[in-house]
């Protein structure tokens, strides 16, 4: 533990205060993220109240099974992330690396399933744009639903790719012995980010996959 200048920055009183500052900063960022996704959810709500039948039709084009499996995968990845933070607080370097690797693997499984779903949509000409074809009523409004589907799940997947990048950085640093029971703030902050991305999916899943199923 001899020379670790990155543990306590000189402008903080102690590690406690340094951690509280990081935590508050991260929550501030997450609040901006809530409002970023909030804008997408508001747009979704506006169009769904306007074209409810078309949104139910559009939802029935999505695969509930794949969506439900992906929800479970993401919840598992949140558990492994929580355990990575737990072992960071205990200062166990190997377990941090293990659980971050598991989280990355589960995140990759989620993105893989997402890619399968996207390719199904491509093959059925459901990608919004000039090639869009939907044999059924409300074709134009169903396209609006599919546009929301691609935008919202796409932004969500983009956030996950960034999260995976951050975890790769954490693994490199953890292997270099940067994190201990005294200093593990970066692991906790990336954990907050990952759980936030999980929460976005918790809302996306019922709003996109489960409407008009009965």
């Amino acid at each position, binding site marked *: 533990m001899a020379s670790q200048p990155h543990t306590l920055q000189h402008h903080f009183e102690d*590690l*406690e205060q340094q*951690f*509280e500052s990081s*935590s*508050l900063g991260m*929550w*501030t960022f*997450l*609040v*901006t993220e*809530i*409002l970023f996704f*909030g*804008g997408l*959810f*508001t747009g979704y*709500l*506006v169009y769904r*109240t*306007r074209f409810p039948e078309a949104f139910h039709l559009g939802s029935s084009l999505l695969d*509930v099974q794949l969506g*439900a499996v992906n*929800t*479970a995968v993401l*919840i*598992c990845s*949140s*558990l492994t*992330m*929580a*355990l990575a933070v*737990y072992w960071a*607080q*205990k200062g166990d370097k190997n377990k941090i690396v293990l659980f971050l690797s598991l989280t990355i693997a589960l995140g990759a499984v989620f993105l893989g399933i997402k890619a399968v779903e996207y390719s199904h949509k491509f093959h059925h000409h459901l990608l919004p744009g000039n090639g869009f074809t939907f044999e059924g009523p409300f074709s134009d409004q169903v396209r609006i639903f599919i546009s929301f589907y691609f935008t919202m799940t796409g932004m969500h997947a983009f956030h996950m790719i960034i999260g995976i990048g951050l975890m790769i950085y954490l693994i490199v640093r953890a292997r270099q012995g940067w994190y201990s*029971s*005294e200093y593990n703030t970066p692991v*906790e902050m990336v*954990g*907050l980010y990952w*759980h*936030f991305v*999980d*929460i976005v999916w*918790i*809302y996306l*899943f*019922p*709003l996109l996959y*489960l*409407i008009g*199923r*009965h």
Partner: protein
Amino acid sequence: MSRHIVPARVYFLIFLALLVLTGTTVWVAFLDLGVMNNVVALGIATLKAMLVVLYFMHMRYSSKLNWIYLAAGFLFLVILLSFTMSDMLTRNLISVPQAWSSLQ
């Protein structure tokens, strides 16, 4: 450091609760409850989000200042949604004046 370490057992319990709630929301979606389908789906999603925020994200053990930040974010989300919808849902209540409709 005097920070609270959440026992691993709590994480597993929350994890199980989240899986059960996910199963419940899929099951309920296939029942016909009318408008209540939306209420139940969003209620379960919000319950899941609260479990994640309180335990996985340690909000239950965080400083009051973090609580205020999260509450402020949530307040502005509610303003965004409610002001937009109060406009969208009431447009048809106001009839267009005669002189305007002749312009259309």
